[in-house]
């Protein structure tokens, strides 16, 4: 064994015992599940600045947005993370859907093209995250193929997952459907908009993902 190989071997051994200091936490989910609202809430709580713009028009987040070194403290633990807000994953992107929100044809086509690129980017990032929050709109059916595929992929890569049942401030919300659909995963019911139950989410993040 050469000297450099010996050094690499030694570094590898010490890295096993060295605790990872910062994790890359990806926020995944379908468009309009509230990923950016949640990323903003987390970032505002711990850094005092937002991550991105929120809109009722689907695919508002079309590129990956990051906030580095977000330090979450809860449960007597502290966790440093890079918060990565992913574009929403969908199986179809039709520019005509955007025009229903009053967007011009040209702008809708541009948005559609950017949205497809964003989805590809978010999928590629599955290889690079250390943990994931899969955000679901609690007013919608959670048993969609996008959610199933996302969770299945994360599990196959042994990436820890917390399911976030968002929008519980809405009367139509039925977070129990998410628990029923994915009984093997921890589910935290929150409202990123009102901040309800965020403490519970921080407890889960610091205890499960550290």
């Amino acid at each position, binding site marked *: 064994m050469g000297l450099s190989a010996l050094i690499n071997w030694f570094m590898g051994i010490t890295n096993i015992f060295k605790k990872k200091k910062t994790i890359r936490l990806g926020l995944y989910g379908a468009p309009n599940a509230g990923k950016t609202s949640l990323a903003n809430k987390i970032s505002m709580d711990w850094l005092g600045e937002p991550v991105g713009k929120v809109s009722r028009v689907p695919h508002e987040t079309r590129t990956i947005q990051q906030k580095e070194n977000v330090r979450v403290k809860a449960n007597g633990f502290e966790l440093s993370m890079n918060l990565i807000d992913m574009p929403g*994953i*969908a*199986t*179809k*992107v*039709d*520019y*005509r859907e955007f025009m229903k929100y009053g967007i011009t044809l040209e702008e809708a086509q541009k948005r*559609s093209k950017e949205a*497809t*690129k964003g*989805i*590809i980017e978010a*999928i*590629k990032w*599955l290889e690079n995250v250390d943990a994931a929050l899969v955000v679901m709109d609690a007013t919608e*059916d959670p*048993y969609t*193929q996008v959610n*199933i*595929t996302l969770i*299945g*992929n994360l*599990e*196959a890569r042994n990436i820890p997952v917390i399911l976030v049942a968002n929008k519980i401030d809405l009367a139509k919300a039925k977070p129990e459907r998410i628990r029923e*659909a994915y009984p*093997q995963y921890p589910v935290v019911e929150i409202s990123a908009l009102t901040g309800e139950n965020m403490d519970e989410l921080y407890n889960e993040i610091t205890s499960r993902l550290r």
Partner: protein
Amino acid sequence: MIEIEFLSAAVLSQKEGKQKIDFLVASLKKGKILVLEEPLTHSEETKLIEATMKSVSEKFPGIEIGTLGRNDKNHLREQIIRMLGGKPSGFTVIGPSKLVRQMKRDPETLSLFAGDGQKR
């Protein structure tokens, strides 16, 4: 007229990785609804979504996909069955979203709403 193509496990087993995904996307772009005797893996599903996004156009805005009966809670068992050349449980249905307006599933049933009319 709606064309539904049933693909046996044998047909797709002859195609590897990208070739398999490209074959599926090409068939979907022709307007076919595909029923796969052997379900796609989660990894194949994401590759299919990725390939679909690269192909999105005015005529082909995307797909609807649903897999039913796959053992999502025991990946190891499914992997071993595949390694031994067996057919894992379940099936996958995929259709172009211009034709398949919606797929709805509860754990045991998959409903497909197709047609040129409005979404139900």
